[in-house]
C-alpha cells in the first residue's frame, strides 16, 4: 500500500512537472481523437485526411472514431470510452449541441481538452470551437448564387437536414437576413427536411418540386440534402428551370455541377480544416491558446481566437470551372 502511495505521489509530481515545463511540451506525444457525426461520410473523411497529415508533424497519436449512424448517443458512448482510455484531446463535430455536453464536461473535468469543429456543442462543454466559415458569409454565398442564376425575384424552397440542426439553422438564419436586406422580392415558399439521409432528401426534393411547381431555386445547406435536391431536379427534367445551391463536398455534387443543375455551391476546404483542428488540439493540449488570442499555422495562415471561437476560412465556392481541382 505504501509503495503504491509513493508511486502515485511520484507520478503526480512528474505530471505537475510536465505541466510547468512548456518548453518541452511539443516533444511530448499526445493522444488526440477526432469524432465525426458518423463514420463513412466523405466530408468527414476529408477532415480525417488533413488531420492525419498534420498529426504526423505535431507528434500526435491520432484516432478517428465515430458512430455508425448520425446519433449523438453513439458519440457519447465513444466520448466515454475515450475518457477511459485517457486521451489528451477530443475533437468533435456534434450531432446536436445538447446531448454530448454532459459527457464532454466530464472529460474536461478530468483534464481532457475538448475542441469542437464544424457543428458546435454547448459552449460550456468545449475549450475551443473551430467554425467552418462565418455564418453571414455562407448565407450570402448561397443567396448570391440564387440571385445570379434564378434572378432577384426567385421563389426559393429550403431543404435542410433536421429542424434542430445547429449549423443548418445558423446558415438559414443568415440566408433569411441577407435575403430580406438585399433581395426583398425573393421569397421562401417552403422549408422541408431530409434528415441528412440521401433517400429522404430525394423524396423531400421531389415533394417540393411537385407541390410547388413555381419554385425556381432550392437552397439545401446539407450534404445529403443538396444531392437529394439536385437528383430530384434531374429526375423530373427541370434542369435549367430550377437551380440548386447548398453546402456539400465536391465529390458528391460533381455530376450535378457538370449537368448545370448546381451552378455555384459554397463550402470550405475540408482537408485543410482537418489540419487546423489538429493544430488547435496541439496548442490546447500544451495550454498555449487563450480564449482571445491569435496564432499562426505554417501553410494555413494566421487565425484569431475570439471568445474561444476560431473561424476557419472564407467560403470556397465550387463551380464548373474549379470543381475538378478539389477531391474530397
Amino acid at each position, binding site marked *: 500500500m505504501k509503495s503504491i502511495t509513493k508511486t502515485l505521489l511520484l507520478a503526480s509530481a512528474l505530471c505537475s512537472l510536465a505541466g510547468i515545463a512548456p518548453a518541452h511540451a511539443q516533444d511530448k506525444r499526445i493522444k488526440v481523437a477526432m469524432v465525426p457525426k458518423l463514420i463513412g461520410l466523405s466530408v468527414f473523411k476529408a477532415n480525417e485526411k488533413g488531420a492525419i497529415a498534420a498529426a504526423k508533424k505535431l507528434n500526435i497519436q491520432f484516432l478517428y472514431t465515430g458512430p455508425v449512424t448520425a446519433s449523438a448517443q453513439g458519440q457519447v458512448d465513444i466520448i466515454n470510452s475515450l475518457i477511459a*482510455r485517457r486521451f489528451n484531446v477530443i475533437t468533435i463535430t456534434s450531432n446536436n449541441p445538447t*446531448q454530448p*455536453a454532459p459527457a464532454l464536461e466530464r472529460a474536461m473535468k478530468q483534464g481532457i481538452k475538448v475542441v469542437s469543429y464544424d457543428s458546435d456543442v454547448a459552449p460550456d462543454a468545449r475549450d475551443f470551437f473551430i467554425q467552418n466559415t462565418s455564418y453571414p458569409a455562407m448565407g450570402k454565398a448561397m443567396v448570391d448564387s440564387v440571385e445570379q442564376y434564378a434572378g432577384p425575384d426567385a421563389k426559393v424552397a429550403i431543404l435542410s437536414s433536421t429542424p434542430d440542426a445547429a449549423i443548418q439553422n445558423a446558415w438559414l438564419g443568415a440566408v433569411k437576413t441577407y435575403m430580406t436586406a438585399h433581395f426583398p422580392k425573393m421569397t421562401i415558399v417552403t422549408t422541408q427536411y431530409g434528415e441528412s439521409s440521401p433517400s429522404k432528401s430525394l423524396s423531400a426534393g421531389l415533394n417540393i418540386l411537385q407541390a410547388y411547381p413555381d419554385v425556381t431555386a432550392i437552397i439545401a445547406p446539407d450534404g445529403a440534402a443538396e444531392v437529394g435536391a439536385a437528383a430530384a431536379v434531374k429526375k423530373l427534367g427541370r434542369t435549367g428551370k430550377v437551380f440548386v445551391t447548398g453546402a456539400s463536398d465536391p465529390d458528391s455534387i460533381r455530376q450535378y455541377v457538370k449537368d448545370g443543375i448546381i451552378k455555384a455551391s459554397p463550402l470550405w476546404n475540408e482537408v485543410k480544416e482537418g489540419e487546423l483542428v489538429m493544430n488547435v488540439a496541439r496548442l490546447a493540449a500544451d495550454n498555449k491558446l487563450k480564449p482571445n488570442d491569435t496564432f499562426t499555422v505554417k501553410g494555413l495562415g494566421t487565425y484569431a481566437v475570439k471568445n474561444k471561437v476560431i473561424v476557419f476560412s472564407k467560403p470556397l465556392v465550387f463551380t464548373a470551372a474549379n470543381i475538378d481541382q478539389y477531391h474530397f
Partner: protein
Amino acid sequence: MNRFLPRHAWDRTLAIILIALLVAFCTLIPGFYAGFGGTLAITDQFLPFGFVAIGLAVVILTGGIDLSVGAIASLSAVIMAILTKSGGLDIWLAAVLALIIGAILGWLNGIVITSLRVEPLIATLATSFIYTSVATALAGASPPYGFGKPFGVLGNGTIALVLPVQLLMFIGIAIGFSILITRTGFGRRIVMVGYNRDAAHYAGVAVPGLLRKVYAISGFMAAFAGIVLASYYDAVRPDMGNILLLTAITMVVLGGVSIFGGEGGILGVTLGVLILGVLRQGMLIAGFSDMVTTMLTGAILLVSIAAKNLLSDRGFGYGALLLRLINSRKQEATPPNT
C-alpha cells in the same frame, strides 16, 4: 415441462459468460477497471436499454413484439420536458405524468392489437411512426434541455458514492418483474398465452385484456427509460429513443426469451442486458470502433436466436429431435415383458 436445455442452464451459461467478460476486461483492457465505483459507473451508459428490455420481455413472453418502445421513450421524455420547461410543472411531477402517458401509449398499442386485430409487428410499427412524428412536432427547432442537478441524479447519480442510482433501480425493477412473472397468476397467464394462446383462451384467460395490460407495461418501462435518458443527457430529443429498440430486442433474446413467446424469464434478460452492455462498453474502451460493436450485436442476436431455436424442445428444433431420439432409445432398451 420437459426441456432439452432447461432455462436454468441458459441462465447459468449467461452468468458464467458475464463473469468471464468482467474478469477478462478488468485484467486485459487498461482503463476498464477504474476502481470499484468507476467500473460500476459504466452501467449508467447502457441500463436505459435494460429498462426497455425488461418491459419488452413481458411482451415477447406473450408471443408479441413492441416496435414502438423507442418512440414511446422519446415522446414521453419530450412531453416531460415540455411540461416542466413550458408548463412550469415540477420536474418530478412531470416525470410521473410522462410515465402515465407512456403506459397509456402502450395501452393504445394493445387496443390496436386486440380490438382492431392488427398483428403486433404492424400495429406497433405504425404507432411508432405516429409517436415519433408527434414527438418531433412537439420538440420543435430547439428541444428543451437543462433540467437541473437534482433531476440528474436519476441518470448519473450514485448512492453511498459508488452505487449508481440506475443500477439500483434496475436491480429493484428486475426483482419486481421476476416476482410478477414467476410468482403471480398474472405472470403465469402471460407465459401461458405465449406458450399456447388457444389453450389459454379455453382455460378461461381473458386474452385481449391481458395483452392490453402487457403492452401498457412495456409502454411504461419505455417511458421510464426515456426519462432516465433525459436525466443522463440533461436534454431531450425526438429521436433519442431510436437506438433503444434493436439492442433491447437483442438483450431479451440473448436472455433466453423465445421470440415466439411462452419461454424465458427475467433473470436471463437481466443477465442479457449486463452482458451486452458490458461487452459493448468494454470493446469501445479497448479501442474497437462502433462499427465492430454494432456488427457484434447483430451476430449475437443471430447466434442466440439460432441456438434457442435449434436447441428448443418445441417443434422441429434439434433439441426436440434429440429428445425424441433419446426417448425412443429408452423405450427400445426397456424389455417388453417386465
